[in-house]
């Protein structure tokens, strides 16, 4: 699958170097800051669960109480463990309840107390991480037992009823019809909630809330399907929005297999503060690395607001940045579901060959990553007959260019969140294309110096130019200027900035310590 584009290896190397240089300052930022959600994730790892009578999770109550007393900059691990020792409470959830009732005072331990607290905190959080490790081993076992899908790309389908109890049978039906991966998309509002809802939910808009219980229910249902089908069916959710680190943690704890997790999606498409995002990002990726979760990045989204031809190189740049951030956080290549999409205006002459050029460029730049190939959305219309055709060509481009994860397009894209029958029609489409033309990539040889090679090399050149400008100007400024998805997001604006703190001296995060210690 390599070498069809005749890319210049020196240019490819240069692109990677530039991405590292552009990303490094942001990593430094992430290493020197924490957020409320990172700290709540730490508490979840340490075993704090449940919510108060209003449905506010106890991790939120506990972090809020710590912040009220000593601020966020020291991390919550030490103050919490110190208070637990002081109060003689073994169970941190109990401590959280007390804190919620206002009956605990927090302080930052020092000296001998600090050392003891460090040890205790590390033990508590370590237990959580061990649970994640067990879940990963369990996944490995189940994959061994049931097997992986027979074909590449893996077939990825969404369910989106808003009601976990409608989602489950639909997901199982989809698996039976051939889905290898089920994604439960989230209710429109969730990304801006600064807490993770609790329990099974039935009330989402255009998606179902991501909760630990919903994760558990769906994973159990798909374990059942995996047994039935003799093929391990993967489950995906979204580690994005204000609670990205916690959701990543819950995903690790409930053995989710893939998570949407992008370095810039929240900034651009949810107007979340850039610093908040980059800090949350790094932590969540470290968790994903540990949990053996494949991440899916969100470059496809840029092409819904920007033009897919004009902005093709911004996708490449973002993929290179996502790759750098991912490696830095400990993710291996096989975990990088870098995103891209079939979003060129279908009325453009040679649009399909342009799609092939772009898709192949990503394939050859990231030969070991299971690229996530997203279907047409922007140019889908209410003409569902045309829509199904376009999806067929999307599927074809996917197999001709060796994509890793095929997000199945729906003929009703412009109309409704998918119906049961849409999914069935879509899967039939995928099956036809993969079965009938699955070997066509062998006969697909872009003419030397021809349209496809020229286009791919041109996009790579543009990407390198843009990366050079970003290195000069900083990534944060580039984001502020609307470089990605023609959406301008200044570093001092956006939601969730008040939940960010610079590390104080003595900041301690046992999770980071464990995760980085064992990279």
């Amino acid at each position: 699958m390599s070498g069809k584009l005749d890319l210049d290896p020196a240019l490819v190397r240069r692109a990677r170097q530039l991405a590292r240089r552009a990303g490094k300052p942001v990593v430094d930022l992430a290493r020197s800051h924490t957020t409320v959600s990172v700290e709540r994730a730490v508490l979840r790892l340490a075993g704090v669960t449940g919510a108060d009578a209003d449905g506010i999770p106890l991790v939120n109550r506990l972090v809020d109480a710590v912040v009220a007393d000593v601020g966020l900059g020291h991390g919550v691990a030490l103050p919490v463990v110190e208070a637990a020792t002081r109060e003689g409470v073994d169970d941190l959830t109990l401590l959280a309840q007390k804190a919620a009732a206002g009956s605990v005072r927090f302080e930052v331990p020092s000296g001998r107390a600090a050392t003891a607290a460090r040890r205790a905190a590390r033990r508590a959080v370590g237990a959580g991480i061990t649970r994640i490790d067990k879940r990963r081993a369990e996944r490995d076992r189940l994959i061994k037992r049931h097997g992986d899908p027979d074909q590449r790309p893996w077939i990825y389908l969404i369910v989106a009823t808003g009601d976990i109890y409608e989602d489950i049978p639909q997901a199982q039906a989809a698996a039976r019809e051939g889905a290898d991966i089920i994604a439960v998309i989230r209710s429109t509002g969730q990304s801006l909630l600064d807490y993770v809802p609790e329990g099974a939910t039935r009330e989402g808009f255009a998606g179902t809330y991501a909760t630990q219980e919903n994760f558990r229910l769906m994973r159990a249902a798909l374990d059942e399907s995996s047994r039935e089908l003799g093929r391990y069916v993967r489950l995906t959710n979204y580690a994005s929005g204000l609670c990205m680190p916690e959701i990543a943690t819950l995903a690790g704890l409930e053995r989710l297999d893939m998570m949407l997790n992008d370095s810039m999606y929240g900034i651009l498409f949810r107007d979340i503060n850039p610093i908040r995002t980059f800090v949350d990002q790094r932590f969540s990726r470290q968790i994903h690395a540990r949990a053996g979760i494949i991440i899916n990045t969100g470059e496809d989204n840029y092409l819904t607001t920007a033009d897919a031809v004009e902005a093709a190189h911004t996708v490449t740049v973002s993929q290179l940045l996502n790759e750098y951030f991912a490696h830095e956080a400990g993710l291996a290549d096989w975990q990088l579901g870098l995103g891209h999409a079939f979003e060129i205006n279908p009325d453009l002459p040679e649009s399909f060959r342009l799609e092939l050029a772009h898709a192949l460029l990503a394939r050859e730049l990231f030969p070991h990553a299971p690229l996530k190939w997203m279907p047409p959305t922007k140019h889908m219309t209410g003409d569902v007959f045309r829509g199904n055709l376009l999806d067929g060509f999307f599927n074809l481009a996917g197999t001709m260019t060796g994509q890793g994860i095929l997000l199945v397009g729906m003929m009703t894209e412009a109309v409704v969140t998918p119906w049961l029958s849409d999914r069935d029609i879509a899967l039939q489409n995928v099956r036809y294309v993969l079965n009938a033309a699955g070997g066509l990539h062998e006969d697909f040889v872009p003419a030397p110096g021809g349209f496809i090679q020229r286009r791919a090399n041109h996009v790579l050149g543009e990407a390198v130019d843009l990366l050079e400008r970003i290195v000069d100007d900083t990534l944060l400024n580039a984001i502020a200027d609307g470089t990605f998805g023609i959406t301008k997001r200044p570093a001092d604006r956006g939601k969730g900035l008040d939940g960010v703190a610079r590390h104080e001296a003595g900041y301690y995060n046992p999770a980071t310590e464990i995760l980085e210690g064992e990279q």
Partner: protein
Amino acid sequence: MSTVIRPYGDTTGDGMVQLSFTLPVPCDKRAEGAALQLAGKMGLDPAMVVHAKQMGEGFTFFVVYGRVNHLVDLSEVVVAERDFPLLSPHEVNALVKRRLRRELVVVGACIGTDAHTVGIDAILNVKGIAGEKGLEYYRELRVVNLGSQVAVPDLVEAARAEKADAVLVSQVVTQRDAHLHNTREMSAAFREAVPADRRPLLVVGGPRFDELMAAELGVNRIFGRGTTPREVASYLVHALITQKAKAA
């Protein structure tokens, strides 16, 4: 399972359906209003015109999605359920041999100007369809396949000459109800030419027949899309042997 159901989009009871049609008007707001009026009359509420495209000068194609009000009562569903046992070739042969004590004669044809023989051949020829052998394969049946574009008088004549127990007729072309006209013509001809007690069993088949129309068309039975030879053989035995015995 409840006996009253509704269409299912993505939630139980949501009643969602998809609809497309053309109206002979140019594409504008009035046309969309007309499309909504039609959808409303069909019971869609709310209805959304999600696609409207003008074709030529005076036509517009619409795609409409919406929730349909109607309930479907399963207890009131009328179907031509198989009211006879499905037999194996072996059982069919055994019954014919034991009870009829002679070959059962089947004459088949595509009548009128219809030349689509694949369907009737699938039922009659040894090759069969969907893994089942056709009636020629049944030792105790004698099959005379007259082929395509057979005129009705020729069919009647052949049935008489062969002493057919059953006449199997295929009709695939349905434009302007060709299949209904031809079937009526055929059954009338048999009624006229052959006294009731010697009239062969009349069976028609084709992908677009309504299986409930047998009486209306003057035939004994109709088989629709996806019919298999075994169903037909079983029916023949049922109608010509088992049931007759009961009636007697």
